[in-house]
């Protein structure tokens, strides 16, 4: 019996399953030769279990992911209710009042050579950090698109990701995977997991397609984590002592007028025990409240959500809103790859929707599996070890970064915000960074790996958006005067470029209408 790894079985559809299938199939299949030597990829999806449809925001990395899969960006826009996302605008996180800051996807101007954060400290009363260092915050606050219709597909004038309809996205990916990438789609319910002598999974039994054998099983079964969690008993490591949100109330809200402007960023508005997301798609808005059940009752959370809808979309929209409740246990599995089973998506863990880290983790996990697909069973344990180390590190960085949004608050108006600032809830790794950043602004030295999920610039946007103060070093450096001059020049270059982009970019809605009508060119 050969022990090469040729047959991959993905258990579970949804965005995690189909995105993983697409990423792996794009790497291991080619259009001319639809099935490469002995390689098989099948996805088993239950016809009875609806997908949860969480994750309507992506990172810019999704552009490369879709392009590699051979998807036309125009078709993606036309089929999945897609709009452009250029970052997030946070309201009320610092004081609970009118405060607001931007976390754009674009790095500060000439970030690789210059750290503008230090120099911004001297002008911080005159201009917001994001506005001073990059054009994007002003673009998305004016609901402008990140490109023109003449910009080729997937290319940009300023960096962007997407907002999308997760249900439509899964259907779109399924079609592409099956028709273009040779993925075998099996619609059946899994009824049993069958063990091999060595403890690996030999096959799964299904109700309508018998047993399906595989060399590698990818668990995309959602929060139930059927293979990794239920079958292998890999425990969930709870993070609820650090990040408290464990419920979400989600609603879909129509536009008052179908041609109303579409936000070009995610809006995140802090509440008394959580925050509300507001995502603009071309056809509707997705609005939801994620909160901590230890700090707020469902009714209380519902009142805040309906208030938000009434204020931003009218009383009628609030009266009509149908609200769906989702609960989750914030945390991740103790490991993600065990024997010949690896979990991707909610089966590997879920923290909360802040910073839209769910889909990007799917992309990163599937990409690593695609690139390092073990040639045989012997080498699989080593690949699994690397995978586990890498993703445990990534989860820790996500947790640090999400927690950063909470610990910088000055709010003391509810237990939720007070508890969020308790030392016992802050990871040591984050506390160390905060201590250092009191005296030096984050920069390249603060990241250890070349493929960090969050560049140090992201820390800058949150820190200086939330009024964090970095005291300049009391000893003056010989280079200070020179770099200050350079920084002032860069600030004014940025202001000029912002004006040019403001004058030349269409609105999010205008560009999306043009994509429907004309489409993007490939070049």
């Amino acid at each position: 019996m050969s022990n090469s790894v040729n047959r991959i079985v993905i258990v579970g559809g949804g965005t995690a399953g189909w995105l993983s299938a697409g990423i792996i199939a794009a790497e291991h299949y080619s259009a001319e030769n639809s099935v490469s030597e002995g390689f098989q990829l099948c996805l088993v999806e239950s016809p009875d279990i609806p997908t949860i449809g969480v994750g309507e925001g992506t990172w810019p990395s999704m552009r490369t992911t879709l392009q590699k899969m051979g998807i036309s960006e125009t078709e993606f826009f036309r089929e999945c209710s897609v709009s452009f996302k250029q970052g997030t605008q946070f309201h009320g996180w610092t004081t609970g009042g009118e405060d607001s800051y931007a976390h754009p996807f674009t790095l500060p101007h000439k970030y690789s050579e210059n750290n503008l954060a230090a120099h911004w400290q001297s002008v911080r009363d005159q201009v917001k950090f994001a506005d001073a260092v990059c054009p994007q915050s002003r673009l998305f606050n004016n609901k402008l698109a990140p490109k023109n219709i003449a910009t080729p597909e997937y290319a940009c004038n300023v960096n962007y990701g997407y907002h999308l309809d997760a249900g439509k996205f899964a259907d779109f990916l399924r079609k592409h995977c099956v028709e273009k990438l040779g993925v075998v789609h099996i619609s059946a319910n899994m009824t049993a997991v069958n063990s091999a002598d060595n403890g690996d999974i030999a096959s799964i039994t299904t109700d309508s397609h018998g047993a399906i054998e595989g060399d590698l099983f990818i668990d995309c079964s959602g929060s139930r984590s059927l293979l990794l969690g239920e079958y292998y008993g890999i425990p969930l490591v709870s993070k609820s002592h650090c990040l408290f949100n464990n419920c979400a109330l989600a609603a879909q809200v129509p536009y008052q007028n179908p041609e109303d402007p579409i936000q070009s960023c995610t809006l995140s508005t802090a509440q008394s025990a959580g925050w509300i997301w507001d995502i603009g798609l071309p056809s509707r808005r997705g609005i939801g409240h994620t909160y901590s059940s230890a700090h707020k009752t469902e009714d209380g959370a519902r009142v805040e959500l309906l208030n938000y809808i009434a204020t931003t979309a009218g009383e009628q929209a609030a009266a009509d809103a149908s609200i769906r409740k989702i609960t989750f246990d914030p945390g991740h599995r103790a490991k993600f790859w065990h024997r010949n089973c690896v979990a991707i998506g909610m089966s590997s863990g879920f923290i909360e929707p802040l910073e839209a880290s769910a889909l990007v983790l799917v992309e990163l996990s599937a990409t690593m599996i695609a690139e390092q697909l073990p040639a045989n069973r012997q080498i699989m344990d080593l690949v699994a070890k690397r995978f586990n180390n890498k993703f445990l590190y990534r989860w820790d960085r996500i947790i640090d970064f999400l927690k950063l949004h909470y610990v910088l608050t000055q709010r003391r108006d509810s237990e939720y915000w007070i508890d969020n600032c308790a030392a016992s809830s802050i990871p040591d790794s984050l506390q160390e960074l905060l201590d250092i950043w009191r005296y030096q602004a984050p920069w390249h030295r603060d990241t250890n790996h070349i493929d960090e999920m969050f560049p140090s610039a992201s820390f800058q946007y949150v820190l200086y958006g939330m009024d964090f103060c970095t005291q300049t070093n009391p000893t003056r450096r010989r280079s200070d005067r020179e770099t200050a001059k350079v920084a002032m020049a860069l600030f004014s270059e940025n202001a000029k470029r912002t004006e040019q982009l403001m004058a030349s970019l269409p609105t999010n809605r205008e560009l999306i209408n043009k994509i429907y009508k004309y489409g993007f060119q490939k070049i």
Partner: protein
Amino acid sequence: MSNYVILSQSAHKQTKVITERSEKYGDNIKYAATFPLEFRNIQACYPIFFSKSSDTGEFFPIALLGFEDAENLFLNESGWDATYIPMMVERHPFLIGYQVSSEAEEGKKPVVSIDMDNPRVNEDAGEALFEENAQPSEFLKYIMAKLESLHQGHEHSKGFISALTALDLLEPFTLEITLDNGSNNQLLGFYTINEEKLMQLDGDALAGLNTNGYLQPIYMAVASYARIRALIDKKNARLQ
């Protein structure tokens, strides 16, 4: 701004159109839009490239006339120095549209409009549009014929462009030019036929292009690149 009104004998019996080619009539342009049905004439004088509409992102063919904005190297004190003038330039100040009078295609009636704010339009100088007897002048008949061809050429061009993009035959290019005065210049933002891909097309693809009348203009565009040299010579001559 332009101010197009529908052309009629009653409203325009006194109207005249100046046909002289000059900067003051808006002829000092870097490029003119063209279409494959006039490529034979265009390639005899100008290099043919492709540009992208900023409004729709769609490609359209152009005849290159200069290297900088507002630089038409064919334009001098005595007019437009070339044996052929692109139809899209000649059409000014007229436009052709089609009025749909019934659901059927045959019901489409050509409607000619004239831009009354175009500096060519006046009542003193140039070509009259109508004769004393209210009949269209020879000039107007000539223009009408041009506009008809322009309309057909435009429709044909749409299919031509779709075929080029479907076969990935267009590619961006940068032209690096060193002028006699030693300055280095770059021409950016245009697209050209990808000759490597063109040579790799199989018989079916070539037959498809040929059947629709797209193959000949593709090779005419490729041949037209030889005109770049002449354009550079004109530019150098101006520098002296």
